[in-house]
């Protein structure tokens, strides 16, 4: 292998852990000063320095994924006027219109302006150091732009080395994290992983997965024989006072992979009704109509969202059915749930 000072480096084993790079919109002016992506600590420091030094008052966030929405919160905390420009009508559309509406309300309640169904057309500098944003929703001025359009796997080195690239565009690996060249392994955001529910390779660029894949690749290089069992597709994030999490497939995704799926949505509470601080919690379960097996779950609410989704991630991994979920022995005490947890309530409703 050749490294940047022109030297070559010999190896017995190689791990490709080159991560991912932010997707760019490909519009004129995208490289102007004041337009940022957020990928690493260096980016974060640059953004913060720019805000402080230029006394930034206004920010535009392009995109409405996890990083975009987390940055909306960060910008609002710094007192910036914050506007989201997004191609689709609602943020996190994948979770369904009702849940996406709640996320939108949370953004708006916290002073974020949301421009949905708006496509970005380009940027231009102003004489006073500002940035003009051109979009299908009009032209306006801002001080800072954050591009949060997702990431693409960094596979240039891998392609040059002849490593196999999968259907998702990321490096394809076997369960031991080996590429098509057995002494070359890959781990993290540069490679795909196996989705246990859809039974397909997927691209899931997440930090917890990168850590697990890395550790398993390392163990195998060291002489152990570990395999990565794949993922069920769990994610979570927080936007202002709303927690959002999901695991497995949505009903739509289940149908796309040929499963017969039905879903039910319930509104429950995060703690016992009578307990102070109990918040609304909305949970959707998706199950296979043919055998009652759980296929996925999505939830939004003020509190207790991630513990429910983590429980359901275990249920998905174990292949539990709705019958089992309906009477599952979940721990109960009023500070944490009702005697009937939202999981039980949803499972029983879907069984009817």
């Amino acid at each position, binding site marked *: *292998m050749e*490294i*940047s000072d022109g030297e070559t*480096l*010999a*190896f*017995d*084993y*190689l*791990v*490709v*852990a*080159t*991560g991912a790079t932010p997707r760019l919109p490909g519009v004129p002016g995208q490289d102007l000063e004041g337009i940022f992506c957020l990928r*690493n*600590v*260096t980016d974060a420091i640059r953004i913060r320095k720019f805000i402080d030094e230029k006394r930034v008052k206004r920010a535009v966030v392009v995109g409405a994924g996890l990083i975009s929405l987390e940055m909306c919160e960060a910008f609002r905390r710094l007192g910036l006027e914050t506007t989201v420009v997004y191609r689709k009508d609602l943020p996190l559309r994948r979770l369904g219109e009702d849940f996406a509406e709640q996320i939108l309300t949370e953004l708006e309640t916290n002073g974020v302006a949301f421009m949905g169904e708006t496509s970005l057309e380009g940027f231009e500098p102003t004489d006073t150091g500002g940035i003009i944003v051109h979009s299908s929703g009009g032209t306006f001025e801002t001080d800072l732009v954050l591009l949060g359009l997702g990431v693409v796997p960094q596979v240039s*080195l891998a392609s040059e080395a002849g490593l196999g690239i999968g259907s998702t565009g990321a490096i394809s690996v076997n369960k031991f994290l080996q590429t098509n060249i057995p002494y070359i*392994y890959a*781990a*993290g*955001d*540069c490679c795909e992983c196996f989705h246990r529910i859809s039974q397909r390779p997927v691209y899931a660029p997440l*930090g917890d997965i*990168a*850590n*697990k*894949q*890395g*550790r*398993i*690749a*390392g*163990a195998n*290089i*060291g*002489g*152990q024989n570990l395999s990565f069992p794949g993922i069920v597709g769990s994610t979570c994030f927080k936007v202002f006072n709303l927690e959002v999490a999901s695991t497995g497939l949505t009903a739509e995704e289940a149908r796309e992979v040929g499963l017969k799926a039905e879903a039910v949505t319930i509104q429950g509470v995060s703690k016992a009704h009578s307990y102070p601080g109990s918040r609304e919690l909305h949970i959707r379960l998706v199950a296979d109509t043919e055998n009652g097996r759980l296929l996925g779950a999505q939830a939004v609410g003020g509190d207790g969202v991630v513990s429910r989704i983590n429980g359901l991630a275990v249920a998905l991994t174990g292949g539990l059915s709705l019958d089992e979920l309906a009477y599952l022995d979940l721990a109960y005490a009023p500070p944490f749930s009702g005697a009937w947890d939202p999981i039980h309530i949803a499972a029983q409703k879907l069984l009817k």
Partner: protein
Amino acid sequence: MGKKLVVVGGGAGGPSAAAKAKRVDPELEVIILEGGEHVSFSA
């Protein structure tokens, strides 16, 4: 002499692999290459 492992990328996946490989096989020579300024910020 032990075998040599080269890891490209010092984010989350790279250092995880490097550390585990070295723990399992202390004889292994391990090198991490990182193009950026910070290592293991996401691990």
